[in-house]
């Protein structure tokens, strides 16, 4: 079962192709993270899926319908966590959550939502007085109050402190456990690693890689790095068989290997090497442009 299906999606702004022939399938119940640098086409893609933007060509199906022709019945099955909840300053979290709940056919209980996003103590205070993290949690509360089958989360934990992020991840895991399909965009690779079943890396409007966080870009099969302290210096060894190397070291040192570290490329390393060509391209374009201006 696919919740989202994208074929040959194209969106142009003037002469710039923000999304350039994107293909992607996201399964029902899956937690999918879309990663990419700024300007990669993440937000454009997600907003097309949400029915907020039109596309220039390609096929898009979200919960079996074309989002451009979305109606209330379809909206009732979707939850969207927007990037900011400005304009709510004069209300309280309870007021806006209750009012939003009434627009859905089978909403969650308002108190349950307030508890799930940890806003019990602020529920009856003006939203103007909420911190950035509390506002984000309110956004999430507004996104989940309708008991959506599919939840869109656009950079949900920007501005969270570490504890708030961990609490938020628990909330997302519990939604996923209930069977909610979740499409997440994020800048934080640890977040994608913690939450996502699969990760897609997008840059220049195209999908560069698509895999589980553990396997992305061949991470699992890449050589590991073994390092330790010896003779006052840090020794490093790249190897496909780290366990064998560690056993050898253990024999050589007859016990504890001083300051032993075994590591594989982090998701961040893999991600940065994937998007590196695109980042450099952009830099080169800028250089050319400024040279033209100089000439």
């Amino acid at each position, binding site marked *: 079962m696919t919740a989202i299906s994208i074929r040959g999606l194209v969106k142009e702004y003037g002469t710039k192709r923000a999304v350039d022939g994107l293909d992607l399938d996201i399964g029902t119940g899956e937690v999918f993270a879309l990663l990419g640098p700024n300007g990669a086409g993440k937000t454009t893609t997600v907003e097309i899926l*949400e029915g*907020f*933007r*039109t596309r220039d060509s390609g096929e898009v199906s979200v919960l079996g319908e074309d989002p451009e022709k979305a109606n*209330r*019945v379809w*909206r*009732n099955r*979707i939850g*969207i966590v*927007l*990037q*900011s*909840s*400005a*304009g*709510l300053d*004069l*209300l309280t979290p309870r*007021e*806006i959550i209750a*009012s*939003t709940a*009434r*627009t*859905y*056919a089978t909403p969650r209980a308002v108190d349950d939502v307030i508890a799930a996003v940890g806003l019990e103590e602020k529920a009856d205070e*003006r939203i103007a007085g909420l911190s950035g993290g509390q506002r984000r949690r309110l956004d999430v509360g*507004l996104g989940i109050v*309708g008991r959506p089958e599919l939840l869109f989360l656009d950079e949900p934990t920007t501005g969270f402190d570490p504890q708030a992020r961990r609490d938020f991840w628990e909330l997302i895991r519990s939604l996923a456990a209930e069977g909610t399909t979740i499409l997440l965009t994020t800048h934080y690779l640890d977040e994608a690693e913690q939450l996502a079943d699969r990760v897609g890396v997008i840059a220049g409007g195209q999908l560069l890689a698509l895999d589980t966080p553990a396997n992305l870009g061949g991470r699992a099969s890449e050589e590991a790095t073994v390092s330790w302290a010896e003779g006052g210096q840090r020794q490093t060894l790249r190897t496909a068989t780290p366990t064998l190397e560690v056993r050898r070291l253990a024999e050589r040192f007859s016990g504890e290997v001083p300051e032993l570290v075994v590591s594989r490329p982090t998701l961040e390393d893999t991600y940065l090497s994937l998007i590196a060509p695109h980042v450099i391209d952009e830099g080169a374009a800028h250089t050319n442009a400024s040279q033209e201006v100089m000439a």
Partner: protein
Amino acid sequence: MNAVALGFDRTVLELKMYSREKEAVFFGFLFPVVMLTLFSVIFNDEITEGTATMSAAEFFLPGMVSAGILLTSFQTMAMSVAVERDDGTLKRLRSTPMPAVSYFLGKVGLVVVTALAQQVLLLGVAKFAFGADLPTTADGWLTFGWVFALGAIAGTVLGTAYSSLATARSIGAVVVAPMLILQFISGVYFDFGGIPSWLQQVAAIFPLKWIAQGMRSVFFPDELATLEMAGSWEPGRTALILGAWAIGGLILCVLTFRWFKRGTT
């Protein structure tokens, strides 16, 4: 819930937000009352208008009633919709299954409640604080009713359409300056007869002049009709022009309304 019930729910929410915003309450809701009070205190003597003499409160009441209608309908709508479009409120509402019509019903509810409350307050202050005479005939109140209703409807739809001209940052200036000019040339603050006739012609294009004329016909002695541009109260033409603005404004609304900020679709 159905669209009407959700519209009622939106009205309650809109009223909460409106009443908690002190600037809106002062510059939209209380402003005409404050102005009427000021004029009544400043101009102590009776004012002679044509063949009639009246107190300052009585002289300025039709103007303040008219300005109030436009403030609570046009200004409220233009400002709130422009701000809500820019700060993402409209986008957030669009992301829920709420029908579009419920949003507008909520706004209409807000205008109806605030405009009626303002008129009650304004007439109450005029009568009980400054001893102004209010209409005593059913006919007078009927005229008050339809001029108020048509004016508020026109103001609501025109304000909504007008909101598309500006961003949240510029809407204050874009609304307040033309409103002020319109109030001056439409005879809200001055005797309309004292305005040069070419400027009267300009004012006659816009609805405020007709609302003010309609309200003068309610609150002024009948013999003052001779001071109007046409020498009569022209109730038929007033209804026609306000009705045309209301219908034209509605069409403009439907054609120009956007849920999203410019350049984001």
